């Protein structure tokens, strides 16, 4: 039986259980059963519980535009794109959204684009992401390049980014609408004091961008030494 996620309605579960039970042979010689003990052993839970989605990032620390001479492929969505322009965004978020998860990691959307997580950030609380340039139609109907600061940055439903497409993103943005999640620029608390909007970095390729990212991770999330070393080791 295909398992249901816990957010499905209880009534549906009950119906399903009844239906399945009806097709099983259950002996009439059922043993006398006793209730389970009242006090289960004390438990530890190290992994933070899965937080609700959609949810906004807490704050935007820095936004750095970049452009590359040589493109690279953005594989964080089903319809992969070649990237020559985009933004590095430094942001803050609660730990439950940042810890690395295998089963249920929320997809981070910046506007209508999937963001590539560069570090984990669960200790520092700071996450760096790379957001390839995207375009979106404004209220006037004109297609324009998206701007991170005027876009919503949301942790969307957990999913594998490689399975995410425009339709999925659209549905998630609709959920964000329903949850009244505003764009970052619309929240005075979202942009931290000292926020810097840098000039666009002109770089050769993704390797060069990785070296910039290494410096940024070292500055904002210095405990992630293995990640920093890996970013620097690329040649």
């Amino acid at each position, binding site marked *: *039986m*295909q*398992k*249901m*996620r*816990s957010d499905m309605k209880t009534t549906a*579960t009950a119906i*399903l*259980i*009844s239906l*399945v*039970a009806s097709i*099983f*042979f*259950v*002996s009439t*010689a*059922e*043993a006398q*059963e*006793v*209730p*389970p*003990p009242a006090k*289960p*052993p*004390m*438990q*530890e*839970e*190290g*992994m933070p519980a899965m937080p609700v989605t959609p949810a906004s990032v807490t704050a935007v620390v820095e936004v750095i535009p970049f452009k590359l001479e040589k493109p*690279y*492929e953005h*594989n*964080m969505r089903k319809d992969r794109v070649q990237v020559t322009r985009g933004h590095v965004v430094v942001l803050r978020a609660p730990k439950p959204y940042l810890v*690395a*998860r*295998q*089963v*249920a*990691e929320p997809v981070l959307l910046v506007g209508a684009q999937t963001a590539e*997580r560069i570090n*984990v950030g*669960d200790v520092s609380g700071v996450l760096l992401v790379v957001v390839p340039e995207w375009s979106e139609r404004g209220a006037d109907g004109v297609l324009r390049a998206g701007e991170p600061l005027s876009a919503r940055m949301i942790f969307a439903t957990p999913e*594998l*980014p*490689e*399975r995410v497409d425009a339709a999925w993103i659209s549905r998630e943005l609709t959920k964000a609408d329903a949850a009244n999640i505003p764009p970052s620029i619309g929240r005075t608390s979202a942009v931290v004091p000292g926020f810097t909007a840098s000039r666009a970095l002109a770089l050769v390729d*993704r*390797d060069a961008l*990785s070296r910039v990212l290494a410096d940024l991770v070292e500055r904002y999330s210095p405990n992630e030494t*293995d*990640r920093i*070393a*890996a*970013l620097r*080791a*690329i*040649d």
Partner: protein
Amino acid sequence: MALTDPDCAPSGARSEHLFREIHGSSWCSASAHQVAVVLMACIAFPGASALAGGCMGDIDGSGDVAGSDLAAILGGWGTNDPAADLNSSGAVDGEDLAVLLSAWGPCPAVAPIVAEVACVAAATAPWALHFNSFNLGGTVGAAIDPVRFSDLVGTTVDLVVVDNRSAAEWAANPALTDVRGASQALVVPATPAASVVSLLMAGVTAGSGDSPGRGFDLVVDADRDGTLSAGDIIDGAGNEPGFWYVKDLAAAGPYATTSIASYDVNDADIADTMELERIYYPASIAALAPRPLVVISHGNGHNYAWYDYLGTHLASWGYIVMSHQNDTVPGIETASTTTLEHTESFLAQLGLIGGGVLNGKVDGDRIVWIGHSRGGEGIARGYDRLFDATFTSPNYQIADIRLLIAIAPTDFLGTTSANPHSVPFMLLYGSADGDVCGCPDSDIGDSFNVFERATGLRQSTYVYGADHNDFNCCGINDFAGPIGTAIGNTEAQDVAKAASLAMIRTVVEGDRSTEEYLWRQYESLKPISVASTTTVVNEWKPAPANIVAIDDFQTNGATTTSSSGGSVTLSGVASTAESAQNDLNTVFTWATTDPFNGATRARTSDATRASVFNWSAASLVAWTVPPALRDFTVGKFVSLRAAQGTRHPNTIALLGDVTFTVVLIDELGVESAIPIAALSGGIEEPYQRTGYGTGTGWQNAMEAIRIPMGAFRAAGNSIDLTRIASLVIRFGGSNGSAQGRLVIDDVQIERE
């Protein structure tokens, strides 16, 4: 039995190898003519005529081992003809043939008896269990069956431990040279219950070359003349030893290691940010022959530098290990691509890596993939892509991937894509995993789904108290379980190091010294440095060719009919069901409407099925064995796997290992019963983790029970193992636990 019978006995050693070389198939698919041709080839095999290990093969008493004896073997093939059953296994099979061939030619004046002697003591009948692997520093038992060797009871014999010799070596040198410096005198006990003695092994070393195991032959020198001679008993007469003395599998191996901290493959087929590798290898690689390659693919948010413990460990045992950046954030397809491409790039760039230090040193025909979490699913998906030929490489092919080891894999892609197919597969998994949790509400976190899909040899090492990131150095503490049960990453990694080494040695190297660590009860055999308080549940299922299924529950879905077509009698058991191993709802709370509560081993699209029932008084389940399957001597083990029912009242009331008794009954009604308590331990209770409803107890922990066929022979005295009419499991009363609820599956005979 005809040689074309699918149940014909497997043969071993050189003759079987030669047959495969010539015909590309096993004895079991051979015609009598084919066998005869190969036998002649064996006889002509260089050195074969010199093999004279005594007169074990002189069936007709002519004074030599010759064609007439060969004819007797062929004439008795598949029967239990004692004259032709040279190794007293209960069947005339390939092993007898091997013994005969090893003795070909004139008889020497001596005729030792081949029998199993090395053993583990059991608290109940059959008192001695003839296992073959023993820990360095642990107890090595020896038992002389006082029934079979009644003439020796009360006499003094010498137990002699000799470094393993082949049959040819024994023929050339029958002198008994005890590795301990002196043999061990023993007055042969009169009763089976007192028959097991401990060998004095002080000062004896373990390991041999790259192998953790050192093989010994064990001789009972009955006439105490210091020579293998008539009337002596030998355990290990063939080329394989009588027993292995094994080093700590979790400790470093014989090689000093070195590593390349970071190597960039600069491969256009790999994402720019995923090109790094860390490489571990023996420091003396220049002096070594090409070694198998082990590839490690990390999980999401993990790092390729987080597996030093495993890379260094395996390199110390002679393997070349490459841990690579793994593109897990996008998903499983990208992860699998990274594994596939890094394997290709590594093999292509051996001339560049480390200045070419590994050039010519990697055996690209023997590759092991290890993957963690999303990376664990990624290796299964990678193998599936090779299987589907949607990925091909100029540098390796699917046959080169010899083994997958998945550590807590996710299951995003499901049945058709997260699929190891028939490649040998190992699952390493912690019961306190707070991420890939084995929870009932999502298939994605059910690692056992992937395990159950593996159709070849498969093994599971389920580690109580280990969490997801205990299997790397530096991931977040995700422990989820009862306070006080966390074993910590040092202990979990010791289990992982030992289990992965054992699996690689067994599968990739054909090293038999490590196999028993993968299926014996952990209470009976565990790696030396793993704590006795650590609970590990082993599952082991051979490849289909080595199985004769009595009931695998995959067909004939009624509880009263086995998959092999025989009737099944259930007496006294309750709440019986036979279905997919799939918890039907989103909680672990026990409910009669969810008979497979806790079974997190299948999606709706998966095939694995089992039986489940409970008891609270003396009861039984009895399988009538179809006539075609009644010769149990085709196998070495009677086996099944079982798990306690999660949060069932009987499970909760017992809260300990469940035990029961496995009984064989022959056509004349002679019984032989083995209580599984004799194996040490039993079926482990579920890990006592809460959540997902009320009550305590986590997902079903299936555990293998393998009972050596010889144990039934020893316990049943006159039972005819060639004519087993029924296999019965008895519960309650004197048969084991007074109550319980069990999921049972794969009731079968196993050839190896």
